[in-house]
């Protein structure tokens, strides 16, 4: 069925020019993500996770190395990104926001409206299809962004801490909705988070990254079967063991840094 990974990252490095000279955000990074996988990146702040996503999204250019996203047969958009901060365009209604990606791909008004309507229903915003973003709560705005990303049907979805600024309750609800959408559509998703719970709830694999310049410390296969329920997972004794293991990985890294001479 597949010929090689959907996303293939080789020797990727990124340095930013600052007043104090170049600062390395990403160390040399290699990663393959197979088609249909939800791959989660966790790591400390500033470890370059977001930079990696922005490079894949075409919003930054790499300093060295290559990223490749394998195209399917039909020419779809390569990526659609869900950002941490509210990114629904304020001047478009919920419906037009969700249809935006398709509109940019030149899909005719009729078909993009019907696709948008379907995804608006999937994220429970049917009543708000004609509302503007400023009339919505934070959680609803993120639903719009998630629906827009899925509706534009790209090769891969990029999610940069999409639920990071939401309260715990809303976050759990949106994680549930994302799980359902992912399990329905089988899209390839690269998901960045600070939260180990979120990583284990959503991911097929969890990529644990070091502090800047970000490198991969370890990749953990998450054994929980799908379809998953966020709350049920928490009761599984395996779950606690995985949480502890990831903490260990992140902690070991911190100690090694502390021990190394400045």
């Amino acid at each position, binding site marked *: 069925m597949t010929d090689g990974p959907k996303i293939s990252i080789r020797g990727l490095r990124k340095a930013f020019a600052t007043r104090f000279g170049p600062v390395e955000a990403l160390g040399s990074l290699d990663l393959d993500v197979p088609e249909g996988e939800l791959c989660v990146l966790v790591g400390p702040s500033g470890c370059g996770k977001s930079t990696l996503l922005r490079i894949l999204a*075409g*919003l930054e250019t790499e300093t060295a190395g290559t990223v490749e996203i394998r195209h399917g047969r039909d020419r779809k958009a390569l990526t659609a*990104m869900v*950002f941490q901060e509210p990114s629904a*365009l*304020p001047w478009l209604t919920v419906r037009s926001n969700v249809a935006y990606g398709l509109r*940019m791909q030149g899909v005719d008004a009729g078909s993009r409206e019907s696709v948008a309507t379907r995804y608006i229903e999937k994220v429970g915003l049917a009543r708000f299809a004609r509302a503007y973003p400023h009339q919505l709560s934070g959680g609803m705005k993120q639903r719009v962004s998630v629906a827009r990303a899925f509706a534009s049907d790209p090769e891969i979805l990029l999610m940069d801490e999409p639920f990071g600024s939401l309260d715990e309750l809303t976050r759990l609800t949106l994680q549930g909705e994302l799980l359902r959408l992912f399990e329905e559509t089988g899209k390839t998703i690269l998901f960045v988070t600070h939260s180990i719970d979120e990583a284990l709830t959503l991911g097929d694999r969890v990529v644990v990254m070091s502090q800047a310049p970000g490198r991969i410390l370890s990749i953990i296969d998450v054994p929980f079967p799908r379809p998953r329920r966020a709350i049920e997972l928490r009761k599984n004794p395996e779950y606690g063991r995985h949480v502890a293991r990831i903490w260990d990985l992140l902690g070991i890294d911190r100690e090694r840094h502390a021990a190394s001479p400045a």
Partner: protein
Amino acid sequence: MPHRPPRGLSLLSPVLILAVWEALARGHLIDTRFFPAPSAILGATWATAQTGELWSNLRISLARIGVGFALGALPAIALGILMGLIPWIRLTCMPVVSAIYPIPKSAILPLIMLIFGIGELSKWVFIAIGVFFPVLINSMVGVLTIDRIYLDVGRNYGARGLNFLLTIALPGALPVVFAGIKLGLGLALILVVIAEIVASRAGLGFLIWNAWQIFDVEKLYTGLIVIGVLGYLSSEAIDAVERVVVPWRKA
């Protein structure tokens, strides 16, 4: 719960001032040659309206504002948005803009009349130049202050060229563009009066200047009132247009 102030409160101070003014004028406690009673001004305004003198002058001024405003604002919006989007256009144009913008527009009027004559064309150009700069600068700033996240969304979803302009840059800048349009319209009102005082046989500026020349003080006040009302109505009209064109703006 705090008391809601009664709705008519904002009318109280103007009504009070007019009443005192009327009383003082009738009692001849103020010089009615300079401060005729409000009732007398109203009478004069009515008479000017009856003869059609008011309407013909008003129509002429409105036409000059309309043409001049359109000539100034439309290119200003287009160039301003391009200056906001494209750094080399901004860097090329900005020194010229910064040099011309601070010159009082009234100081340019003689030159404009020299070049364009004293007919309608010079009025249009004069108003257009005045309107051009605030609209240009606000349009540019409108684009430059669009939240970066929306630019990222546009780029990530493949908006390029004209698509980017129409779905991200223009709507994103629109609230600030409207602030520029409001400034520009206010300026257009000032400039039309200046131009008509200096060189015209018609229009509201001429009405006022003519009233001064023949010492018809009531008619002079009529001109002032009409200009005041015009300013108020035009600002209300812009607000109404803005509500339709920028419906996402928080009320």
